[in-house]
């Protein structure tokens, strides 16, 4: 083969390299994707208490952190106000309020119940919590529970959602990582 043919191939190759390397660049930086398309957020935890003696008596307590893990602090942090020495049924509702319509994360948690566990830790005047719902492996979940309140006074109830995937879940709170952790003030009257 002749030398100029080599050269031709070589130049063609070099040129192609350059074209190839430059091809896919966009010269403009796009605007960032809308925050609404960001991966799922957890922004709010709503506690819905039903009085066992009067089912029309419903009490809410809410924690709202509209930017989720964004790093700004909460905007709403209710105390749990319940009557003393009574039994309540609790539904825990977890929401992503940045989505429209708002996204009920608790449904997803229910779907993956075998990987999740709510843990309730009372301190001072608070309540004794019994989890009433079970996952497919007969382990507690905690979206639903029964609260027996103590005598009047102030205290805390720490509610933690543990993510215990890959078979880590064993009914206790130690394994896994924390998805949600809110330490509510309790006011038992």
């Amino acid at each position: 083969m002749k030398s100029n043919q080599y050269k031709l191939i070589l130049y063609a190759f070099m040129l192609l390299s350059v074209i190839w390397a430059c091809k896919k660049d966009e010269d403009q930086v796009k605007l960032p994707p809308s925050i609404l398309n960001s991966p799922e957020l957890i922004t709010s935890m709503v506690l819905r208490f039903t009085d066992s003696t009067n089912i029309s008596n419903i009490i809410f307590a809410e924690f709202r952190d509209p930017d989720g893990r964004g790093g700004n602090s909460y905007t709403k942090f209710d105390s749990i106000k319940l009557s003393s020495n009574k039994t309540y049924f609790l539904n825990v509702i977890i929401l992503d309020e940045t989505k429209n319509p708002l996204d009920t994360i608790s449904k997803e948690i229910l779907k993956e119940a075998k990987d999740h566990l709510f843990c309730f830790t009372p301190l001072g005047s608070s309540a004794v919590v019994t989890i009433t719902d079970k996952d497919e492996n007969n382990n507690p979940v905690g979206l639903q529970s029964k609260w027996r309140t103590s005598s009047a006074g102030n205290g805390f109830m720490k509610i933690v959602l543990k993510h215990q995937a890959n078979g880590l879940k064993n009914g206790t709170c130690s394994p896994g990582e924390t998805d949600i952790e809110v330490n509510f003030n309790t006011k038992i009257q």
Partner: protein
Amino acid sequence: MRKLYVHIFFFITATNFLAQQILLPKTECNLSLQGKVIDEHDKSALELATIYIKELNTTATSDENGNYEFKNICPGIYNIKINHFNCQPLEEKIVLTKNTVKNFFQEHHANQLNQVEVSAKKIEEQSIQIRNDVSAEKLNQSKGQSLGEALKNITGVTTLNTGNSISKPIIHGMHSNRVLVINNGIRQEGQQWGIEHAPEVDPFIANKISVIKGANSVRYGSDAIAGVILVEAKPMRDSAGISGEVNLVGMSNGKAGTSSACLEGKFNELKAFSWRVQGTLKQYGTVSAPNYILINTGSNEYNFSYALGWKKENYGIDIFYSQFNTTLGIFGASHIGNLSDLKNAFKSEIPLETGPFTYEIVRPFQHIEHELFKAKSYLLTGENGKLSLTYARQYNLRYEYDKHRPLDDSLVNLDKPDLQFELTSHSTDLIWEHNSFKHFNGSIGVSGITQGNTYEGRVLIPNFRSHNGGIFMIERWRKNRFELEGGVRYDYRWMQIYKYQYIANAIYELISPIHKFENITGNLGAIFKKDSTLNISLNFGSAWRAPSVNELYSNGLHHGAAALEFGNNKLQSERTNNIIFTTRYTPSKKLMVEISTYYHYITNFIYRKPSLYPIVTIHGAFPSFNYTQTDASLLGCDFYLNYKINKQFEITSKASLLRAWDITENNWLMMMPSDRYEAEIIYRFKKYKKINSSYLSASTLFVTKQWRVPANSDFAPPPREYFLFNIHSSCSFKIKNQNIELGFSIFNLLNQTYRDYLDRFRYFTDAIGKNYVVRLTVPLNILINNKSIKK
């Protein structure tokens, strides 16, 4: 991956044409060789050129049409020399097996007879600052490990690790954006700001890795506050032939295997052209600490590069392309939900999650790709210098997957990373270097970089576009025992941010502020060489760094670190004024001592200041950090000694000390390496039969406890001091004229349990235990050279 195939395809098609020429021999003595002698440049026929066959001692002369002819030649390999009065002599090797037509292209240089002398004059390297190389022996020992691990062999260089697989170099206590990596002459542009983002460079590309310690903005641009790491490939082949090298590395810890191969060549027919192709594959399984397995610490890597060169005596073009791809598992137990999880992790003696050995990588993990394309051309500008123009494009892609997959199944199926960054950079440099003129030589240049960054997924750093320009001049004066160097540079940086700012109540607003930075930096150095035994150098340097985008705008949770980080868009450029005093004393061939003392005074030093109260979010409480500025002083000393007791025994000793002080706060600075001492004793065996350059060495490293930290500023107190022992050995032997090299090392020989202050996994786990490493290097000197046969 698709791109990789396309590049391989191009390469193969380009080289195939050339490789097809190799055929098997025949024997008859009636062959003819004929052809034309042609001017390389204007393709005109050259009359009266003499064609001389060395082996046969015969000549032919070209006619007015440039034609020549030889008859009745035996098959064989011949060296042919072509002379023309106006040209440079041309020599070529020809393998003759049948009647051949061969055209010679001669460089025709009427009245340009000085060219050869000019190109022979080497242009001096443009820095007076002392360069420390990783020795070939140490580079070999670190094969199969990351770039950071190889760099640790230089005194004053340590690493900031995230476990075993992510290793960032620290020079004089500074890392990330303060250290520049120059890969094949190009500034590495990745997501350097992250402490768990290691440089995306395949160490097998390099045949030389060196570090210039100290501020060096003048030559390399902004950010070179702590120093510059130079990763250089072997020069391209300069004689015809094909050669290569295969490297195989096996490690016991992580049952890891690395293979790397390189093939390069140059063809007889095309003297100016040279090529190289190289690739690396790495596979690591989960590694183990002495007492347990660290789950999900496997990783894999596949890299590919090629280089093409076209070199004439007064101009040349180099093209280099490389691709780096890696997937890194992040130790599962280190990825925690919030501060309570972190506290639980500290309390636990062994990591809260552990598991069996596997090669599988699950969440959390990172996937990183880096592409570099470079085209460099140079032109000798007469007798007085060299002009070079370099263009480079880099593309960096980083995917980070959280431990936690999304709850929503539709999101799970998309399998999108939780964090994704894409950074594209284009850079151009135009530099003119001039040769000695009245004891001066130097260079002048301009450079520009434009970058665009985009993210998807969770917000950590915003999108941005930036443009940087710089102009510099360096002059060096040399007379007798003295050398002086001075340089000055001006830089301008423009950056526009695109970001959604959180207003309130889940409402965000798009903002696009513009930041501008400009700076003048300078450099002044002096070397005094008494004779070959004493070399004293003193260098004053200044360097600056614009705050990086994470320091300005990061806002949110850094998951791996379980911390909320807040940038500050009011930050100013930081600047260091640095003095380094180095004495290199070599009284005899047996002894070499180098002591280097340095002092950095850094104004507006940017760091992460812990705030007093944790922030409560729905995920629980998190410690928070704000980027702030302070004035800092870094004072330190690096010491190196090598003493050859006799032909067999040799000792090496190293020490690096650093005191880092926050002047404004009147306290120690966080995250600084503690004092390190190393000693190595080497025994070199005498040559035995075909086995040569074999050695056995034992080394020890002592790292003191870092107690120089501000109180209550860290999640856990710094770990205690530790000793490590390593063993290295190597030998090379000849099989069929190939020099095969076999090496063996044991890292952490005593299987010590230890934690390093600058390993981010120290909060969760011990560092890895004993590791046996076997290395094999097989050179391939094949084909063409004298043996191959041409049509």
